[in-house]
């Protein structure tokens, strides 16, 4: 029994780390631009597509391919921000419709280019590690390790880099930040790029584990959405806690009941939180 | 006036935000035919008190009644339905509608909020004529007739504020609550606003409670003044007494405001 619980905890942790990467970008974009990015799952999909092209088609080293994929997705994201989203900063409803339109377009574009079929990518590592009876697939472990490294990097960036500090300042108080000479326009561009890069990274990392198709973005987007509301829209620590929580709860409910019920429970939780603690579990209630 | 019936009455009203007491045990009552002013230095809790009376948020403790009926738990529309209509500190109008349409809506909403009058409020021509009559009447009463067809959002700030008052009058209140009617107005406009308020009482028979920062205007037009300081009642009296009240002067000196300004 204990072993089963630890196994569930490990599975939950692995998924939770991916959720966190999705949710951090989603919440960062909302916190800074006040835009709910319904296209966030599409950037995950683009990351997976890019890694497929670079790694399995062009034969570039897997790690280099993941890095390149993140950069490509970030650039695409920044172009989209500059051309389509900037005018919607702060106009929440129209901005949301715009991201829906972007999601539709990106998904259709990917289908036209890559076709609707599911494709698989060779795994960079294989096998299973057995630690005292707890089984962890090596590829999952690799994803977990890279995800942790990225999250630590992201933390130090926000904590110590000038751009990171500026981003946090803009998220907290736009006007005060502008008074201090921070140019919000550049921060929008940067944060949207970083948010997309995180989603693209998640997609690139998960691509060898699942199959790749133009439609793989929807589920991670839904998860990010749940995590972000659990943790509070716009809260970075909330995204981390919410991601871990969702990963573990889901793994538990999925093991003992089934995944549909697990999803239903998480959405019910979202409704309750939106109604009674709109600032999320971690945040101060308004 | 001291024999007139009590209209608005607050007893032991307290409001706490978290652990902070914004309003502590405030009690007072206004009487029929009165213009009642509430003043106080910045941060004294004037806005909080105003929002409690208008039902914007509930009090932590205490009771608020109007003509003996409790209005503490009614919410803004419920308070309005009792014939108590508020105005706003900033110019608050329906900006993309004409000035006269704003006033017509004020009348219409005032009618809607009183259930017993619901029967008259049909599309019957008599009801429409009534709305037009009231609109014309309020337009001229407030001196807004010249601008009647202009978009409310395009009007000068002072005119928009007057329009806000006009909408409240059109709603047909027995009691008006005015949140800083002089805020943002120049001295000439402030004087005109004061004049309008006095005429609202004299010619329309509407009682007025106003919260104001401009002490000069309050002492000029109010019958009685309540001084609020740090959430508590410092004094309630006629303007002449308030102006000489040592505690009041001290409270205001702290805030660096000259009571005898204007």
């Amino acid at each position, binding site marked *: 029994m204990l072993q089963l619980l630890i196994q569930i905890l490990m599975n939950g942790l692995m998924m939770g780390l991916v959720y966190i990467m999705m949710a951090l970008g989603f919440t960062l974009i909302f916190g800074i631009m006040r835009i709910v990015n319904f296209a966030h799952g599409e950037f995950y999909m683009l990351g997976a597509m890019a890694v497929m092209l670079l790694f399995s088609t062009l034969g570039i080293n897997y790690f280099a391919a993941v890095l390149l994929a993140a950069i490509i997705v970030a650039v695409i994201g920044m172009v989209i921000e500059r051309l389509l989203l900037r005018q919607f900063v702060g106009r929440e409803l129209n901005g949301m*419709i715009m991201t829906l339109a972007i999601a539709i377009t990106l998904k259709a574009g990917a289908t036209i280019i890559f076709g609707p079929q599911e494709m698989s990518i060779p795994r960079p590592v294989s096998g299973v590690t057995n630690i005292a009876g707890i089984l962890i697939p090596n590829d999952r472990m690799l994803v977990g390790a890279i995800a942790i490294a990225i999250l630590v990097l992201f933390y130090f960036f926000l904590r110590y880099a000038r751009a990171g500090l500026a981003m946090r300042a803009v998220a907290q108080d736009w006007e005060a930040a502008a008074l201090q000479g921070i140019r919000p326009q550049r921060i929008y561009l940067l944060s949207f790029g970083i948010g997309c890069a995180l989603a693209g990274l998640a997609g690139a990392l998960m691509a060898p584990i699942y199959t790749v198709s133009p439609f793989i973005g929807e589920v991670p987007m839904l998860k990010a959405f749940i995590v972000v509301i659990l943790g509070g829209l716009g809260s970075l620590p909330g995204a981390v806690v919410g991601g871990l929580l969702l990963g573990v709860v889901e793994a538990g409910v999925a093991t003992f009941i089934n995944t549909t019920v697990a999803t239903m429970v998480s959405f019910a939780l979202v*409704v309750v939180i939106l109604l009674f603690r709109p600032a999320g579990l971690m945040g101060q209630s308004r | 006036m001291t024999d007139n019936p009590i209209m608005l009455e607050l007893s032991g009203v307290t409001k706490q935000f978290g652990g902070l007491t914004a309003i502590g045990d405030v009690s007072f009552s206004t009487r029929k035919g009165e213009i009642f002013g509430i003043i106080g230095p910045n941060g004294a809790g004037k806005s909080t008190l105003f929002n409690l009376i208008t039902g914007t948020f509930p009090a932590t403790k205490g009771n608020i009644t109007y003509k003996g009926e409790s209005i503490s738990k009614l919410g803004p529309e419920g308070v309005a339905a009792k014939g108590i209509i508020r105005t706003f500190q900033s110019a608050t109008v329906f900006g993309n509608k004409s000035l006269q349409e704003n006033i017509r809506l004020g009348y219409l909403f005032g009618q809607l909020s009183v259930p017993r009058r619901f029967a008259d409020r049909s599309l019957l021509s008599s009801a429409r004529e009534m709305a037009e009559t009231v609109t014309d009447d309020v337009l001229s009463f407030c001196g807004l007739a010249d601008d009647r067809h202009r978009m409310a959002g395009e009007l000068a700030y002072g005119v928009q504020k007057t329009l806000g008052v006009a909408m409240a009058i059109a709603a047909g209140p027995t009691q008006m609550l005015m949140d800083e009617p002089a805020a943002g107005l120049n001295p000439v406009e402030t004087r005109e606003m004061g004049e309008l308020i006095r005429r609202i009482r004299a010619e329309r028979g509407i009682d007025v409670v106003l919260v104001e920062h401009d002490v000069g205007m309050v002492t000029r037009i109010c019958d009685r003044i309540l001084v609020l300081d740090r959430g508590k009642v410092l004094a309630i009296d006629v303007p002449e007494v308030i102006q000489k009240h040592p505690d009041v002067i001290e409270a205001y000196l702290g805030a660096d405001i000259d009571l005898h300004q204007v």
Partner: protein
Amino acid sequence: MKTWKILAGLVLAVALVAWPFFVENRFLIHIATMVCMYALLALSMNLMLRIGQLSLAHGAIMGIGAYTSALVMMSLGFPFAVGFLLSGVVGGLVSLIIGPILLRIRGVYFVLLTFAFGEIVLLTFIEWVDVFGGVNGIFGVPRAQIFGFVLKDKALSYLMALAMAAGGFFLLRAIYRSEFGAIMETLEDDEDLARSLGVNAMAYRLAVFVLSGAMAGFAGGFYASYFTFVSPGAFNFWAAVNLIVINVLGGIASPIGVILGAAILVPLPELFRDAVQYQVLFYGLALIVFLKFMPDGLYGLIGKIRGKRNDR
């Protein structure tokens, strides 16, 4: 001018009713039926957009109507009329129950809330296999039947859809021109001011939500009998997004714009029949262009052109 308008309206009405009996093209009639059904749905979404509360639950509410009608006919054995009526009633009733809770929340949080609610409804359809048939849904829903006529004939189904769309259109037009409409507008403009003058904002919002939910429910009831099957996939949040797209493209400001949006967007897939994805791509791109350059939609564009002509 006035009689000219009435005459034109009459001719249009006769043409709309009569054409399927002359043009016996089943495919065209099917498309026209879909235009009408989506017009009704988009009008129901228009009500919500008018009070500034964008709902992503409308796909799910339509689904509730569709499943209600299907189950009332198939499991309880009632005739179509009862099933159809209940589809709207239950759609409205569900809105009435959830409305007081959901409508307190505004802006983006309301959108997210309705999104989550819609997902819960869909997952319920999927999970509760005994009743709702799971992912596959329910097959063999009886066709619509009015006064003993089974609407097997496409033209009759079209007429029913046309009647529903026309009903929705005239209802909304009447509402927007009435004082109820004036109040709805002020709720979007400045709710605090409206409330301070005595408008019970929540009651009006709830009334709008219930009407909107009932319209979506009726559309669902029609859907179930027209396609003779229901499955959860048709009622996810993308269904609600489609309705928003129709509104944005047609123009939120007028019911005519909404009808126009449905009439242009619904047949679009047929232009790209060989490659559905090109249609979706076009759909997305058109929406992007409209949001960026034409925030007032097609109807606003027509208004602008007309305005310019009048200036001359």
